[in-house]
């Protein structure tokens, strides 16, 4: 029938050329170098982690507490935005929910631990309805829906005056132990976030999330429950963000809806850290977050009132000049230099 002719003229023994994966000779040397680099990074990280804990400068402790907080946020965002490829701009909802849960628990006489646990729970639970709603949408529509969901949560916090105090916010007694304690707690939170990320990455959930990022229909056909996997990821991520919110609340002793549910001050930095650092490696998001925190702080000190303007400009320039993030840039350069089959296996 119609298709029979196709086979007749072709060469019967057409052998395939050398498959692209044979060109991997330089991989061993690369692996050794990256191992050395990793060890150096680990040592540097450890030194940086301990330094602010023993240094007498409260400013340094404050700076590092802020850094750990945003590194943890980026790590949490990466679970959803990086692994699963679901670009969320609504993570402020979980952060804020955690902050408010903790603040309300603490002002109502609950202990530090109970309040913190409640904050994590608030973030994780809030993630379920938000995800259930937003994960029906893909691409641009998903981004917009997360934005809107966070905005709805903010308006709730603003208008439920009886519970949250509305725009006035909540004032808390300062954290005993000061910035140094905040720094230690931040480090612990970052450790928890990184551990979670590493576990997810190595387990079934991580494989499924990455499959969903690449091709949702193909993944579903291969037995990946898309909605359930994404909800797990968002809930874990939301829980971590809730804990981060509690830490923020303890560190600053004051929260209001405008600050903890902010798009520009919470959702974007969380995403930006992971985007700049890249989702490929565990160290990507914290590295990116470090850059974001340092640059933001430097601009605040150097530029004063103009720092918001500079922040926006920097955002624009980054997107224009390094569209795939610094990590993507590194990977592209490595690929170009080594002529390898690609950096697909991080």
């Amino acid at each position: 029938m119609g298709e029979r002719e196709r086979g007749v003229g072709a060469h019967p023994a057409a052998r395939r050329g050398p498959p692209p994966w044979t060109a991997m000779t330089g991989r061993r040397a690369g692996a050794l170098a990256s191992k050395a680099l990793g060890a150096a990074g680990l040592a540097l990280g450890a030194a940086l982690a301990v330094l602010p804990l023993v240094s007498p400068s409260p400013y340094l402790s404050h700076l590092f507490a802020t850094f750990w907080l945003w590194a943890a946020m980026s790590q949490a965002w990466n679970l959803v935005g990086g692994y699963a490829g679901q670009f969320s701009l609504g993570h402020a909802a979980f952060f804020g929910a955690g902050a408010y849960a903790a603040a309300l628990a603490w002002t109502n006489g609950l202990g530090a631990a109970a309040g913190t646990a409640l904050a994590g729970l608030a973030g994780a639970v809030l993630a379920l309805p938000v995800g259930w709603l937003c994960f029906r949408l893909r691409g641009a529509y998903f981004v917009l829906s997360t934005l809107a969901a966070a905005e709805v949560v903010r308006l709730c916090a603003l208008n439920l005056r009886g519970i949250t105090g509305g725009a006035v916010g909540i004032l808390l007694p300062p954290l005993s132990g000061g910035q140094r304690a905040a720094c230690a707690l931040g480090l612990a939170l970052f450790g928890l976030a990184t551990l979670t990320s590493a576990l997810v990455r190595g387990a079934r959930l991580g494989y499924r999330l990455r499959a969903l990022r690449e091709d949702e229909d193909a993944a579903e056909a291969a037995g990946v429950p898309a909605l359930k996997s994404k909800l797990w990821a968002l809930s874990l991520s939301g829980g971590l963000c809730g804990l981060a919110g509690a830490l923020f609340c303890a560190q600053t002793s004051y929260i209001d809806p405008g600050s903890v549910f902010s798009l520009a001050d919470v959702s974007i930095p969380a995403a930006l850290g992971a985007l700049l650092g890249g989702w490929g490696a565990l160290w990507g998001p914290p590295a990116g977050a470090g850059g974001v925190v340092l640059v933001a702080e430097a601009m605040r000190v150097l530029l004063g009132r103009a720092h918001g303007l500079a922040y926006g400009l920097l955002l624009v320039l980054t997107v224009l000049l390094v569209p795939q993030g610094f990590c993507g840039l590194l990977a592209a350069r490595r690929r170009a230099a080594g002529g390898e089959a690609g950096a697909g296996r991080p």
Partner: protein
Amino acid sequence: MGKLQATLVFTEALINGVLVGGVYALVGTGMALVFGVMRFINLCHGELVMVGMYLGWGLFTVAGVDPCLSALICLPPLFWAGRGLYRLVVRPLERSREQSQVLLTLGLGLVLSNAALLIFSGDYLAVYTAYSDLVLKAGPLRVSVPYLLAFALACVFTLGVWAWLFLTAAGRSIRATAQHREAALAAGIDTGRVSSLTFGLGTALAGAAGCLLLPVYYLHPGIGGLLTGKAFVVVVLGGMGSCVGAALGGLLLGAAESLGAVYLSAAWKDAIGLLAFLLVLVLRPSGLVGRSRV
């Protein structure tokens, strides 16, 4: 009497809502054009409206120009500013992933709002014209004259854009590009120029809408985000990228907000729009009107 009073309150709220909704429609039309033609998510549309508001306020304060006139005066400079913006930052990312577009336009929004903060400080500004407090009485109904004027002008602008889209060659190429970019390109349409025109037009409409919003909203540097939110609600209600849909969406949002403010509370006004936005996105992603583009 109680019943009559209730009907009166309802009718007044509805009318005021529809009047404001006309201006929302204009804000949404600009965004719908840009999304429909370029598939570009513009999250600084509200900040562009804010620029128009500051221009209108400036013209009024310095030279006493009426905001309605400013809406016209704003058009050419903002059209060219929009084309410049397109050339400078939008074009390199026009075909890129949504997240880049979102971050880019959020960054632009931050630049604009922070620039406004530096120049004008964070004060709330307003424009008081001779007719600001004028009220039109039709029987027992009372309708604010500035609202009526803003609505009428917004209608003129919206109809003008439609006429331009349907009657001119440039408008035709814009509609063709919205239908199918590759086919338009194959038919000899310079789609790059179309994108530039569209972004310019969207920006100009945003500016005009800003001037018309002056009698309705207090002006401050943070208003852009709020307006971007409204524009998106309008565009999504009408089906992303449909201009007719955006017009209907604007009227609907205006009415819903106004009625919500009367019967629920003014504080929840903004939440109503966002909830509608989420529900429409999830339940009827093609919008209330359907799937037509531009």
